Each structure stands twice: as structure tokens, then as C-alpha cells.
């Protein structure tokens, strides 16, 4: 359990103009699961982000060939000078295998951001976070930021993973988190199993914003559950990844 202060509402963040390409340095790499690693990057032109925003990463080969992808920021904007990107290794990908198989501490990587200002939590309202798999990354930025500010703004996380070893940020999940395993849970697990269902969602709070992130199929079913539970359609924000078929 990570300490919760309860000193008042979270301070509301304001947005600044996003930056240009810059060369970040890999400060630390953490293995989260067999498929997922978190990369802490030091930025020379860092600026605070709003939890939920993303950075674009660009790789350049010696022949000038480039590949770029967007990754959500997982860290709090209070981590001055650095960001954390949590990256799922996609076997047929071009950028994520590079991060997993090639990049080591001290390496450099080109990034720019932070971008987009819709799927963000500015600290303005209570929040229900629903994440599937690596869709937890932007939600973790929100959760970490709420903890770091010591806010007493209500925040709950409902997190669905496949198997016992697929839990990202396992050592940071606290009382606010409801975890469920859709595949094989750890031995002796007496918590939730199976897909997220209505019983795992907290009672609907009309003031709450709901943030749902995961594969398209996950987002579709979690959105339907949140609507059925009474959350307002205009307060549900989604971020989806992966092909539809």
C-alpha cells in the first residue's frame, strides 16, 4: 500500500505548448513482465505533462530510414526532467522490439511531446480508471500523480490482465485497485478472475470521469459496462490500440 495523504483536492494542471524533437537519454530500464518494460528517459527540454498524454518516439537508421510511434507517459509530471514510457513488445513491430532487444541504459533516443489533451486527468474530478493489459500505462500516470500530490480526490483502478506474470506495476497497486485475471491467476489467488464485470465497478459517481484504455474489444465491453452502471456517456474517455481484426 502506497501512502495516501488526503490534504485536499489535486492541484489543477495547465497545459503548455508541446515541444520539438529532442534527444533523450535512457536512465533506467525496468522489466515489468516477460513482454513489457518501462523506460525512464532523461529529457534536455523537459516540460510537465498532463497525466494521459503521450510522446512520439522516432528511430533513425544509418541510411536515413525512420520509424515513429506514440507511447503514453506512465510517470507523474512531478518527476522533473524525466518521463517513463512503458512499452509492450510486439513481435512483428519495428519500434517496440528495438526498445526491448537493443536499448540499454545510457543510450539515446529521439522523442517529442507531450501531445494530445483529451484523454487526460488534470486533477479536476474523481476518476474511475479501467485498464486492460498494457492499457494501464496512461492510467498509471494518473494514479501516480494523485499519490504524489497527496490528493484526496477519489480514484479507483479496475485492471484486467491475462496471467499471473502479466501484472505491470505489480508492486505499486494498492487498495484503490481491483485486479482480475482472465487467464491463469497466481497460485492461491482468492481475488477476481474472468473479464471485468459489473460487480467489479464501484457505484456510479455522476461527478466522476471514466478513463478506459486497452484493446478495442476491451474498451468496447468496458464502456458498455460503465454505461450500464450509470456513468455518464459524456464523461467516458477512451483510448484504444490494436487492429480491429
Amino acid at each position: 500500500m502506497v501512502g495516501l495523504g488526503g490534504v485536499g483536492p489535486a492541484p489543477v494542471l495547465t497545459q503548455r505548448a508541446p515541444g520539438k524533437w529532442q534527444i533523450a537519454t535512457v536512465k533506467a530500464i525496468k522489466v515489468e513482465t516477460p513482454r513489457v518494460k518501462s523506460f525512464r528517459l532523461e529529457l534536455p527540454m523537459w516540460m510537465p505533462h498532463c497525466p494521459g498524454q503521450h510522446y512520439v518516439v522516432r528511430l533513425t537508421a544509418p541510411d536515413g530510414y525512420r520509424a515513429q510511434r506514440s507511447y503514453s507517459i506512465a510517470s507523474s509530471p512531478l518527476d522533473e526532467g524525466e518521463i517513463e514510457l512503458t512499452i509492450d513488445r510486439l513481435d512483428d513491430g519495428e519500434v517496440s522490439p528495438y526498445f526491448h532487444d537493443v536499448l540499454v541504459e545510457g543510450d539515446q533516443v529521439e522523442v517529442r511531446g507531450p501531445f494530445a489533451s483529451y484523454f487526460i486527468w488534470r486533477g479536476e474530478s474523481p476518476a474511475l480508471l479501467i485498464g486492460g493489459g498494457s492499457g494501464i500505462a496512461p492510467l498509471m500516470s494518473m494514479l501516480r500523480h494523485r499519490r504524489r500530490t497527496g490528493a484526496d480526490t477519489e480514484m479507483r483502478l479496475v485492471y484486467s490482465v491475462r496471467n499471473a506474470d502479466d501484472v505491470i506495476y505489480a508492486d505499486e497497486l494498492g487498495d484503490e485497485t481491483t485486479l482480475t485475471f482472465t487467464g491463469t491467476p497466481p497460485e492461491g489467488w482468492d481475488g477476481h478472475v474472468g473479464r471485468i464485470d459489473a460487480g467489479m465497478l464501484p457505484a456510479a459517481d455522476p461527478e466522476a470521469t471514466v478513463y478506459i484504455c486497452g484493446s478495442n474489444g476491451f474498451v468496447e465491453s468496458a464502456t458498455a459496462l460503465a454505461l450500464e452502471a450509470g456513468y455518464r456517456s459524456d464523461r467516458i474517455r477512451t483510448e484504444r490500440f490494436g487492429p480491429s481484426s
Partner: protein
Amino acid sequence: MPDFVSRGFERRRRTPEELGDRLPPGQYVEDGFPVLTAGPTPVIEPDEWSLRIDGMVAEEREWTWAEFHELEFEEVPCDIHCVTAWSKLGTSFRGVSVDTLLEAAEPLGPYVMAYCYGGYTTNLPVEEITDGQAWVVTEHEGEPLPREHGGPARLLVPHLYFWKSAKWIAGLRVMDHDEPGFWEANGYHNHGDPWKEERYWSD
């Protein structure tokens, strides 16, 4: 040599040579059709759907689903480019040219705001959606447009990033001035030309 090289990075994806000049800078070829939507997927049945042309026009127009299907449909083979860096090449849609729709209403202003079921909006200059550059489509690759891709009908503006091709289109509002739509107000470029990499505000 480029200014910055990523240590140990090599190209892993090969774009077939004949497609190379169809791929804008910074994009990669995606064979699937990813879904990106900022909120819940609206459920609009065709008999509830209608399309309006309103705002600064000589005559406001509205077509029900049945009336819309009396208009002239055309097949639209195209490449589409998402700002998140995937492109889908050689796909096709079927629908009605925006030329046909606007001619019926006679726009009196140089901009439109496309508005949608579910509340999404995106802004476009009239000159970017006329002369065979934009359509309201109801079919994708021979099938009814799936709900998650904007069914029953979406705007299609293939020469701009795909967020301009508004899903669940409900109408075009003609305006005498430009103003940002949903993503344009939330950090993305006002215009969105993939060949100029107009992705974000700062581009």
C-alpha cells in the same frame, strides 16, 4: 548520414517498392484497420440516421437514409493515413460525393464544421472537400460500414489525416470563419496534410 542515428536500429518493415511513393513521411503500412475513438461508440440505426447541410447556405438540406440512397453513389478507391502513423493502402469505400451534397445547398461560406452523432466535430475548408476530394460513405470494401468505423455513415477525406474523416457523420455546417473541431482543439494540427506531416499544433 542523418544528424542523429539510433544505435543498432535497422529497418525491419519493408514497404513494397510499387507502394513506396504512396506512403507519406513517418507512416508505416498497416494491413488491418485499427479503431481509434475518443469515447463510447454511438449506436445509430439507419432509420434514425439523417444527413444535414446547414449553416451559411442558400438552402438547408436534409436527407434520410432512404433519400440519401437515391443520390448518385460512386466507388472510392483510396489510401488512408492515420496520424498515429499507420497507413492503409489500396482500400475502397462507396458513397456520395460531397460535391453533390453541397451543390444541393449552395454554401455561402468558405469553411465547414463536420458534426457527428456522439458529439465529435472536425473542421475543413470547403475547397478541401470539393472537386472530388471528399465523400459521405456507407460501405467499406463491399460491406456496410461497421459501427466501430463510423457506420452507418462517415465522412471520407482521404488526402488529409484520417481524424478529418469523421465517423457517425450527422451533417456539415457551413461557416464564414474557421474554428477548431474536436482534435484540432486538443493538440492536433488544424489542417492535417499527411504529406507535410501536419500532425500536431507545433508542426
